[in-house]
């Protein structure tokens, strides 16, 4: 559904994207990860047609964004990190305006549906300027959804929200992706969100794609890093170091982190069970992410 091929973008002398290629299949929910300034927003803006690439192509639904931007934009909903709202309009008027702009035939119906989906019915008569950040973020989403696009590109949809709002937006995105086999690409800093709703992850670092795979495969190296928490930590560190295959073992109070070349989960579990094993966890997405983007194992 989204095919990005050799995308390069430079701002003056600064290279923001360098030969970025990836594909997102129809119906997939893909998490786009990267540090600030890694090139997430740049990539997403190019796909949405609000930014031109220096070279390379981005295709959505078979149409080249640079050649036929109107066709792409008619089937794509894009929510930038800062909601693109007119702050002196009411929520309802703004979403209606977006619907008209996107060429929706039943403007009132589409507006009502979009407002309902993101839970804005109750505030549709309020001026956007007076809304909280969470509500504004939802207005940004409503704008992206109003023409019922087949592809959603969401740039940090949960940034600046409180935990309850995050969960709401996360659930909303999940529902949207399930309905109508919609393709969703979202960027975020919050890895738990990716783990909860994405089937695949693309990690970008300094303008280059450093990893793209299914969440399961990415976490496949899981057993190579094991974290445990025990009730009685005394003496466990030495025991862990002697477990076969273990390269390093570190202690932090009752918590231990063990790394090695192969899957250590079972071995570590049996070694520590007599110390009152409370929890055991393989490599988390967070660990993978940090390993790939900083080259450091935490």
């Amino acid at each position: 559904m989204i095919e990005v091929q050799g995308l390069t973008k430079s701002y003056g002398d600064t290279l923001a994207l360098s030969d970025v290629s990836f594909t997102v299949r129809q119906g997939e929910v893909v998490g786009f990860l990267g540090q600030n300034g890694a090139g997430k927003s740049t990539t997403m803006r190019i796909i949405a047609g609000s930014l031109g690439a220096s070279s390379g192509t981005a295709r959505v639904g078979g149409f080249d964004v640079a050649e036929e931007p109107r066709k792409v934009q008619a089937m794509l909903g894009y929510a930038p990190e800062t909601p693109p709202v007119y702050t002196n309009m009411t929520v309802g008027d703004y979403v209606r305006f977006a619907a008209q702009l996107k060429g929706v035939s039943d403007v009132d119906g589409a507006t009502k549906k979009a407002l309902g989906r993101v839970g804005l019915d109750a505030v549709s008569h309020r001026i956007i300027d007076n809304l909280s950040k969470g509500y504004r973020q939802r207005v940004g989403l409503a704008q992206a959804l109003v023409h019922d696009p087949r592809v959603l590109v969401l740039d940090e949809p949960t940034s600046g929200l409180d935990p309850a709002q995050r969960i709401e937006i996360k659930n909303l995105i999940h529902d949207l992706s399930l309905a109508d086999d919609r393709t969703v690409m979202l960027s975020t800093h919050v890895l738990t969100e990716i783990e909860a709703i994405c089937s695949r992850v693309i990690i970008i670092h300094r303008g280059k794609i450093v990893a793209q795979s299914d969440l399961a495969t990415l976490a496949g190296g899981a057993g190579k890093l094991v974290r445990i928490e025990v009730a009685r930590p005394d003496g466990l560190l030495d025991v862990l170091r002697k477990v076969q295959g273990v390269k390093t073992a570190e202690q932090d109070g009752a918590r231990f982190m063990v790394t090695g070349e192969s899957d250590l989960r079972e071995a570590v579990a049996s070694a520590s069970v007599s110390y009152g094993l409370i929890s055991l966890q393989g490599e988390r997405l967070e660990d993978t992410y940090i390993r790939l983007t900083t080259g450091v194992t935490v």
Partner: protein
Amino acid sequence: MIGALTIARRETSALFSTPVGWIALTAFTFIGGFFFTAMLIGYFDAYSQSVLNPGQADQLSVNEWVIQPLFSNLGVIALFIVPAVTMRLIAEDRRQRSIELLLTSPVSSYEIALGKFLGGMGFALVMAASTLPFTWFLYTMGDPDTGIVISNYVSFVLMLGTLIAMGTFASSVTENQIVAFMISFAGGLFLWISNWLVQSMGDGAAKTGIEYLSMLKHAESMGKGLLHVQDVVYFLSFIGFFLFATAQRVEALRWR
């Protein structure tokens, strides 16, 4: 085209849903009314004096004494008012990032530029309509030449269109509304009085060229009731040029 009209409708209603539009309109009608009253008084004075000299009274025309100077002065007020209205057209979108909605919707850069311009024109038409009580008053009290009234309105609207097209362009080159105001005000003032600048110049191509640029000259010629093609073309070509330039600027925003 539907996209342009959608944008235009939003812009015009945005102007009237904020104090900016109302303040600008109030200032325009208030100052315009002041000039109108002053001209009427001048006309009445001249008229009452001319009663003593039969024959002279017939030569005192309301067209020359009130309508033409009124529209000439309304033009000067518009030089100040229009940039204040147009400065936010695109600059505000850029500052508050709502430009992203326009750039990622299926509308072309030309439609965006045209929509912003037409949004400003919606305001301009309200401005022009706000002067109708003045002309209505002249019709009830005297016998103005309808042809001259119409050609003055046409030239006034064309002049507003030129100022708005220029203001839309100025608003597209910066995120700073004050800068946009300055650019369009300076540009408008230059176009208004450029024939004054070259009055002492010797005749030649340069003088003719700069004189041709003067809105005042074209507006005056139209204000006398002469609808010359060259005057209409003058205004329309400025509008077209600035619309094109604005569309290029909007397109350039996609490359930053």
